């Protein structure tokens, strides 16, 4: 055992590929001046990888490259890589890239004795010299096996070729078709190219294909051992490299508003921490997307860039739907502050979605990222795979101080679960619930957890209206929590009671006045009665006295008639 440490020895010189992620897992790039074998089955991206290493070498690291193709011609390959944004014609014109199409038509060939592949060497040497190349790609050299009948000669010549490339100090990429069974390549190229072997793999799981990259061997250097998902996107190849969770990201005490005043209030009055992750979980229709959209819109209002990943609705649909609750996303999209990226979750595997998100986040550089919903991404995956993969995403966003909001669909009811096991990775967890009572569904919200801040323990009612999202105090009383119209009814009931109380007093006073009037009337009636009686009595007395006088007169008259004039004389 040598006592010298690895660090004190000169390390292997590496040629950077410029490919996101690949340089990280190879510890700095491919072995410089040596050949690397890239193998994999058909359609897994060997040619693209090789071409990108070449183009990036030529454009970013001033290392011109020669691309020798055995299967496609120059026009075809130029067209193929144009989709990655590489303009080979221009690079060829600038003498940064040289293309050579080596083609052997088996039917034209007749072997007439001893030969070698000096023609290939001369062409390669010529191409290298013409542009001062440092990198060489042979794609796919195995095609020669179909063109040349004498494999013995071919193998010997290939061995000489790789040796020759090494001697010339070329950083070479040799692509090879995956062999059957455990064979790395069909014609055993790994026998000759032993410095670095990268295996690309495309596999299907639940009808979704995922591409993965693995460094099978890298002589003389430490390298990542895992399988890394990769994606061939519009910006080329990218490998998702984050494997170890280094929990050393910077934190900030800066807070960002969620855009919902009362929610901010619940979160210690100022909203969430910048760079933290927020999980919004709830059953269908609890308003998860709305909260995410509000957060995004608020970020845009602050002048920050935001990225919205939608896995349920199309861009136009989101814009329309959010407008209905007063969230105007279109303005920000037009201003370039907001990018809505909608795609089907089943379009790719989880890893590839993450690679794509990674890519977009890198290029767009947002301050806020929303994923709606994260639970859709995991539909087709086994649970065991999901958590570490999502961890990579969360970690990546945190590292870049990006505030992230993820919505997650739960089955509804009380089964909040552990949210794919990711809730523990979240800094803030808002739980939305449907409350069904007296024949209607209402939404409630509460802060399940929020790290590093005093947050409210109250349940609030969550109301979506034309004017936006509002949080309303729920009705607390009679030892029950009421929401929605039940709350409104209860409130109305109380209002009515108060109004009634007031009205009662008035009524009593009015009643009293009425009684008073009635009594007065009664008094008047009795008086009238007494008056009437008095009149009666007076009348009777008068009558009586009249009768009496009449009686006297008639007595006098009778007396006269009987001779009693006396009385008349009287």
């Amino acid at each position, binding site marked *: 055992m040598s006592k010298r440490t690895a660090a004190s020895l000169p390390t292997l010189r590496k040629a950077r590929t410029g490919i996101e992620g690949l340089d990280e897992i190879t510890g700095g790039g491919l072995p410089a001046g040596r050949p690397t074998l890239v193998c994999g089955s058909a359609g897994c991206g060997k040619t693209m990888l090789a071409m990108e290493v070449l183009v990036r070498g030529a454009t970013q690291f001033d290392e011109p490259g020669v691309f020798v193709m055995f299967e496609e011609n120059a026009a075809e390959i130029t067209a193929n890589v144009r989709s990655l944004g590489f303009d080979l014609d221009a690079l060829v014109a600038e003498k940064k890239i040289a293309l050579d199409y080596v083609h052997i038509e088996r039917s034209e060939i007749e072997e*007439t*004795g001893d030969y070698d592949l000096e023609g290939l060497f001369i062409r390669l040497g010529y191409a290298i010299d013409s542009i001062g190349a440092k990198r060489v790609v042979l794609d796919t050299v195995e095609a020669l096996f179909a063109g*040349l009948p004498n494999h013995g000669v071919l193998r010997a010549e290939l061995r000489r070729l790789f040796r020759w490339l090494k001697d010339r100090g070329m950083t070479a990429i040799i692509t090879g078709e995956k062999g059957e069974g455990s064979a790395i390549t069909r014609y055993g190229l790994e026998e000759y190219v032993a410095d670095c072997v990268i295996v690309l793999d495309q596999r299907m799981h639940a009808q979704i294909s995922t591409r993965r990259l693995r460094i099978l061997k890298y002589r003389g250097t430490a390298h990542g051992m895992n399988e890394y998902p990769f994606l061939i996107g519009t910006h080329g190849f990218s490998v998702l490299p984050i494997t170890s969770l280094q929990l050393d990201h910077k934190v900030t005490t800066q807070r960002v508003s969620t855009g919902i005043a009362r929610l901010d209030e619940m979160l210690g009055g100022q909203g969430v921490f910048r760079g933290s992750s927020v999980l919004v979980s709830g059953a269908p229709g609890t308003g998860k997307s709305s909260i995410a959209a509000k957060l995004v819109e608020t970020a845009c209002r602050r002048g920050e860039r935001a990225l919205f990943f939608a896995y349920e609705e199309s861009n136009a649909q989101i814009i329309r739907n959010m407008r209905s609750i007063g969230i105007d996303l279109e303005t920000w999209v037009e201003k370039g502050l907001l990018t809505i990226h909608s795609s089907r979750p089943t379009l790719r595997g989880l890893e590839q979605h993450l690679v794509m998100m990674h890519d977009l986040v890198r290029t767009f550089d947002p301050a806020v990222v929303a994923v709606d919903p994260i639970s859709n991404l995991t539909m087709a995956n086994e649970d065991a795979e999901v958590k570490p993969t999502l961890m990579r995403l969360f970690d990546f966003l945190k590292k870049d101080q990006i505030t992230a909001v993820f919505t997650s669909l739960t089955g509804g009811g009380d089964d909040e679960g552990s949210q794919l096991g990711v809730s523990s990775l979240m800094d803030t967890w808002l739980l939305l619930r449907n409350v069904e009572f007296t024949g209607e569904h209402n939404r409630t919200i509460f802060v399940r957890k929020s790290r590093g801040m005093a947050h409210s323990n109250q349940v609030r009612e969550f109301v979506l209206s034309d004017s936006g999202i509002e949080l309303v105090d729920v009705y607390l009383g009679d030892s029950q929590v009421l929401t929605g119209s039940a709350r409104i009814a209860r409130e109305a009931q109380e209002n009515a009671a108060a109004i009634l109380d007031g009205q009662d007093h008035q009524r009593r006073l009015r009643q009293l006045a009425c009684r008073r009037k009635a009594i007065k009337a009664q008094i008047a009636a009795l008086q009238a009665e007494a008056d009437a009686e008095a009149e009666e009595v007076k009348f009777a007395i008068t009558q009586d006295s009249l009768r009496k006088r009449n009686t006297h007169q008639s007595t006098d008259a009778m007396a006269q008639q009987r001779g009693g004039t006396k009385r008349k004389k009287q």
Partner: protein
Amino acid sequence: MKAAMTAFASARYVLRLYVTGLSPRSMRAISNTRWICDTYLSGRYDLEVVDIAQHPAEAKDKQIVAAPTLIKTLPQPLRRFIGDMSQTERILLGLGLDVQLP
């Protein structure tokens, strides 16, 4: 068939031999080719010998991979012979020459 053969028998041959430098194999190929042409195509062939080490662009243009390579451009169809041209019978067959070897 007979007519075709006669056509070949009288046609003019355009041949180009690509070699790499003055290696023994190249020299063998040149002398073998010359001998075949002189023997079987006397007076009706154009043979050009190209050293691709000196004209590498030619190698690219003409799709030369193995060396030596002899290309028959005329009469059609195009044929390629790779090797040191020591297998005379194969070459004659490939050239469409129906001759009895001595």
